[in-house]
């Protein structure tokens, strides 16, 4: 065995790579359980690609057949129900895990110098995940698939000059239809592989600058690190176990929890559902889109810009945060802002879930007002974070010299 490895290593240094990048890869010893979510995201990506591959073997993209084919998978394919439910719930869990992963990065300042490129790759992955999830949701060709696709693709028409033409080009016709379904399937198959590629870049960037840690300080002393194996391999595996238990509870006992009942009705271009809602993971952004309704004919374009901007602003976050300290653990003001931001995102999601014309407190407070306020708070987070750090308003607490 060792002779074979020697032969290989002379030609391709596999052992050395494994040693330096995996087994002996130095990792800060104080990482808490929030650091498990990166490896969890990789696990879900693998589950999605594996189940998706087998689903693709049985699926047909055809406006007249797709709905029936999904039911054929559910009923006639051996363990087809397991593949489909794991894949459908996997999408929700992917976003859940990635949202925690992003928020962990925001709390502990993982986007700060020298990890900007690492952070950008992460946002690119997130953005591509949204596209992939959106197109995947169209494939069962239920009512929500169809009308969700119609609403979201229609947003492109807000782009000046080329918008209308662009939408027709994306549809492959004058409405969402069979050509749309086919191209979405092709792209839904391709994009996860591109995501996988960017994940490798994300890991490369991580291994170039190494992990941040809860104290947000640079690690100089070797005593502050542990070899990745066995310490973090076992910790990640334990995390995998806990995650899989929760995931399986949903897959086996509440598989339709995240799904809209309307998507079990075949797509019908002649009948608009009473209430079109995107999947939960898009709801905060959907609420931001709808909250810009006060600019007359510019509302649609402004809403789309706000929605895209809500993600794009993450790209400049590394330059907005000017604090000398990375981790919010030692930044009392930033910490409070952070939790306001988190609650704000949840409220935005709730606003996005409800009909646009809804109101609370016996009609005294229209939800659109809540939506606008929360949108302002969302963007306000980035502005205030910049302001309190750029003008030294925040007095940070003493930061430890070493872990």
């Amino acid at each position, binding site marked *: 065995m060792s002779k074979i490895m020697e032969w290989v290593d002379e030609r391709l240094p596999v052992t050395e790579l494994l040693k330096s990048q995996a087994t002996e890869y130095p990792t800060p*010893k104080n990482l808490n359980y929030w650091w498990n979510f990166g490896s969890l995201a990789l696990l879900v990506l693998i589950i999605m690609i594996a189940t998706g591959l087998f689903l693709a073997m049985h699926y047909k993209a055809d406006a007249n057949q797709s709905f029936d084919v999904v*039911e054929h998978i*559910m*009923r006639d394919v051996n363990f087809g*129900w*397991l593949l489909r*439910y794991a894949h459908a719930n996997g999408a929700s869990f992917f976003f859940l895990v990635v949202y925690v992963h992003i928020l962990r990065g925001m709390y502990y300042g993982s986007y700060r110098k020298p990890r900007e490129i690492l952070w950008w790759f992460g946002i690119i992955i997130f953005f591509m995940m949204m596209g992939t999830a959106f197109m995947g949701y169209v494939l069962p060709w239920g009512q929500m698939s169809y009308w969700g696709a119609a609403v979201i693709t229609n947003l492109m028409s807000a782009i000046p000059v080329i918008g209308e033409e662009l939408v027709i080009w994306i549809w492959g016709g004058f409405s969402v239809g069979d050509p749309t379904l086919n191209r979405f399937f092709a792209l839904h198959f391709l994009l996860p592989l591109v995501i996988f590629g960017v994940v490798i870049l994300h890991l490369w960037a991580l291994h170039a600058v190494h992990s941040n840690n809860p104290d947000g300080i640079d690690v100089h002393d070797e005593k502050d690190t*542990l070899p990745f194996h*066995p*310490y973090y391999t*076992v*910790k990640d*595996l*334990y995390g995998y*176990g*806990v995650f*899989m*238990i929760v995931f*399986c*509870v949903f*897959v*086996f*006992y509440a*598989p*339709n929890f995240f799904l809209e*009942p*309307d998507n*079990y*009705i075949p797509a019908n271009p002649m009948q608009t559902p*009473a*209430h079109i809602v995107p999947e939960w993971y898009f709801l905060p952004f959907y609420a931001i889109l709808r909250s810009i309704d006060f600019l007359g004919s510019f509302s649609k374009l402004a809403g789309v810009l706000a929605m895209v901007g809500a993600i794009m602003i993450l790209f400049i976050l590394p330059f907005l945060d000017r604090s000398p300290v990375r981790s919010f*653990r030692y930044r009392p003001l930033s910490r409070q802002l952070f*939790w306001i931001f*988190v*609650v704000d995102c*949840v*409220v935005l999601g*709730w606003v996005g879930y*409800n*009909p646009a*014309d*809804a*109101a*609370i*407190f*016996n*009609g005294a407070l229209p*939800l659109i007002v809540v939506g606008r306020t929360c949108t302002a708070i969302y963007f306000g987070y980035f502005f205030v974070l910049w302001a309190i750090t750029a003008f030294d308003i925040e007095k940070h607490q003493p930061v430890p010299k070493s872990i």
Partner: protein
Amino acid sequence: MNCKEVVGFRSVVKRAGRVVRSAAAIMVATATLATVLVSGDVQASSGVAIPPKQPWSFLGVFGQFDQAALKRGAQVAAQSCMACHSIKYIKFDQLRQLGFSELEVKALAEGAGRTKKDAMISSMDPVAAKESFGVVPPDLSLITKARKGYEDYVYGILTGYATESDMALANRVMADGQVTAEEAKEVASALLLDAHHPDKMAESLKRLIGGENFNRYFPGNFFAMPQPLMDGAVAYTDGTENSKVQLSRDVVTFLAWAAEPTQMERKALGIKVILYLVVLTIMLYAVKRRLWAKVH
């Protein structure tokens, strides 16, 4: 206790304090949010009556189908629902999984104008259906998964039509052509209509008296389907009382099976998978604890 231990202890206390504080903050935020969400009572465009929850035996981790109810429900579906609705993802032959003999399946299929190898497709022509009802009756294969409220909603629809006493109430209230505030309350509690809008209520009562299909659980209350199940509509052979409520309960049980015939297989596998994962995770945690015990 040496100095190092004291420091270690302090940092543990500090860390615990931090965890407790952030946990408390999250809990307070969640609680506030939940209060707003629950008490806030979001008002959409129209108030819709929510069908009450029924004690279905097949729900939950250990829930199982009542086999006798499944068989009776299949009979109701074949002899009553299939007059208009198809259940296209189920073949008559598949009903043998529910305990029917080959001869019984054959009889059910022939009763519906099909053979036992056919899917449960209604013999009503969709074009003719559209002409007489204005809509093509929806396929029922997925009906318990395709409506908010699931099984409870379908049961609510089957049992939610206006009864004779409801009709009497409507006639009495509308005798003078209008709905008073006092009457509005009475109608609201009987027909689950919104008491805040007496005008709308009067409109609904007029349509009800006029013979339109009123259902208290259908969003908008009026729709194309006349009351499908009455007391005694289907003759049971196992001695069970064939009341409207019993027929509805049985056919919803059958439709819940038809919506996902693999669901019991799923639940049985789930227990094994999750138990395995729990044992594995406990062991992984033990290994993790042991390895990390050396790290300070």
